[in-house]
């Protein structure tokens, strides 16, 4: 799949990437799907997921991490981050890469 470098992903594109990352069916992901209760994604998996999404050009601000409860929240924070977040690797990615 061609990944937009700076453009915005639609929700459907976002959902497809997320489904690949979490190894779930796309249909399981609606804006209301809850990460913890529906998908059993705990905080560790959430951090890993955000790091991997960042590799694909989807950067969700780290400060939003603990406020994300649903897939819809994640997409909203991604869109908000697009306008506010400077491009380039996040500090967590830098820490991860040593």
């Amino acid at each position, binding site marked *: 799949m061609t990944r937009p470098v700076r453009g915005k992903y639609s929700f459907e594109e976002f959902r497809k990437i997320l489904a690949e990352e979490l190894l*779930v*069916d796309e249909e399981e992901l609606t804006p209301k799907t809850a990460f913890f209760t529906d998908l*059993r994604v705990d905080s560790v998996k959430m*951090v890993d997921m955000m790091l991997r999404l960042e590799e694909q050009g989807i950067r969700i601000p780290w*400060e939003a991490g603990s406020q994300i409860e649903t897939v819809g929240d994640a997409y909203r924070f991604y869109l908000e981050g697009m306008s506010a977040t400077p491009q380039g690797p996040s500090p*967590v990615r830098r820490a*991860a890469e*040593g």
Partner: protein
Amino acid sequence: MIAARISMANAFQSIVSQHLQREALVCGDFRATYGQLGERVTALAYGLHELGVSKGDRVATILLPSPEFVAFFFALAKLGAVIVPLNPQLRPRQLRHILQEVEPWGVVLSEQTAPSPVLPQLWRREIVGLRYVIKVGETSEVCETSEVWLPELMAVEPPPSFSPPDPSPDDLLAILYTSGTTGVPKGTMHSQWGLVAPVIASLKLRRAWLEKPSVKTMGRMAKVLVRYRQRLLRAAGRPQVFLSTVGCHTITGLEAMLQALLMGDKLVLMPRFDPVEALQLIERERVTILIGVPMAYAMMLGVQDFDSYDLSSLLICGTGGAPCAPELAREMQERFGCAVHIGFGTTELAGGIAATSLEDPKELQAKTVGQPMPGMEIKIVDEQRRELPPGQIGELACRGENVMLGYYRAPDRTAEVVDEEGWYYTGDLAMMDERGYLRIVGRKKDVILRAGVSIHPAEIERYLVAHEKIKEAAVVGVPAPIGGERTWAFIILEEGTEMTAKEILRYCRAELEAHKIPDQVRFVDDFPRAASGKPQKFILRDMALQE
């Protein structure tokens, strides 16, 4: 300051009496001085006493870090009763197993941690001896006869004559659950004194620089002053402010709570970790000692406007509960601008075995777990439990006053890890250098450390092979770049069957707790095996690292 072998109840009462007006606890909008905290503890102890709790009764708590948890801990200590703090994330199956073993007099839960409204009703049928379910929160509905709301329990002012029997330092105070090597949870029993002793050890460790300087300590002070300057001068001789971002059901979280509250310091609690809120709390409360697992630090460092927060009050970033990558430790030193203490401990020892100190060179702070805590004897042994010289890798064994009393209702399992001379064999592979600095190099026991939580592969493997299509499963921990380990499941399918990683994970989501669901799944035709036929997990781990 606590000076002699005493009970937890008396240690707490002594601190309360000395610091009535000093702020003790902050959590959200809740603030309390030691005097107020002492009153809450006495009121709750009286309420529990009137309800029928007496010495030796066990009370399980399923609570987030909160003022209520703190009150229950010290109220039960005051009554000589036993607290069993349980992980709010446990699934109903696991909870039931533990509660059936513990047979608690009561279970305490809150709206945030109640697993399901029907569970307490089931527990009443399945748990022998369960008398009450205590609900934390506002009274909002009519209770069943065996339910009680916390505010009602604390509503009656204790009469002056209320004086529960003085608990002995040797009385059982807590049963802390840790997963067993076979995946069966084990309750580690700790006495009143056993949980005070690690606090005394920490106090000795930081006395030199956190108390008013004396002639004796000036030399050591001078050494660290060069490095920490204003931060040390601001912190020295004053009450410290702890921020704990760790759950109180873990030994790290419990020890952070006790270190603060048994030393007359201020404790700031976070019911749920949030990196921005943590930074705001450090700034607002002028936190000097921050406690968190490595991943929490990585998340804080990732906050976009990290550098805009005033973190100049911080003197120590303490971490443990999971391996901390040296790169992360160095970034913590640099950007938080303070010392990093990587502690190492186990639930069986009620806390720390070793820790780095302010005086240690930064490199040793980042790469080792420091030197043994005061009062802790350490040795490295071979397979036959013979002591090895410095520089050699072997199993880490420890002895001290905080070694557990044993595993609850499991004397055979206790005898496997604690010998007649009181040495506890940790199952960790370690090396100690000539100066006494300890490096943890691996584990003899098969345990995965994932963000502060121990996961025993056997439990996941057993669950996986219960699936009709799965022939064999081997679960290993693989180091993650931002600290801790991740769980990889290697799967051999039954011949002629097919299954996808998605299906495996869907199966796991049905029953396993979120943290036990494998992070990665790989299918293999066979495992690399030892002569005994057992999977060679170190090779599987290497395979994962090479991806």
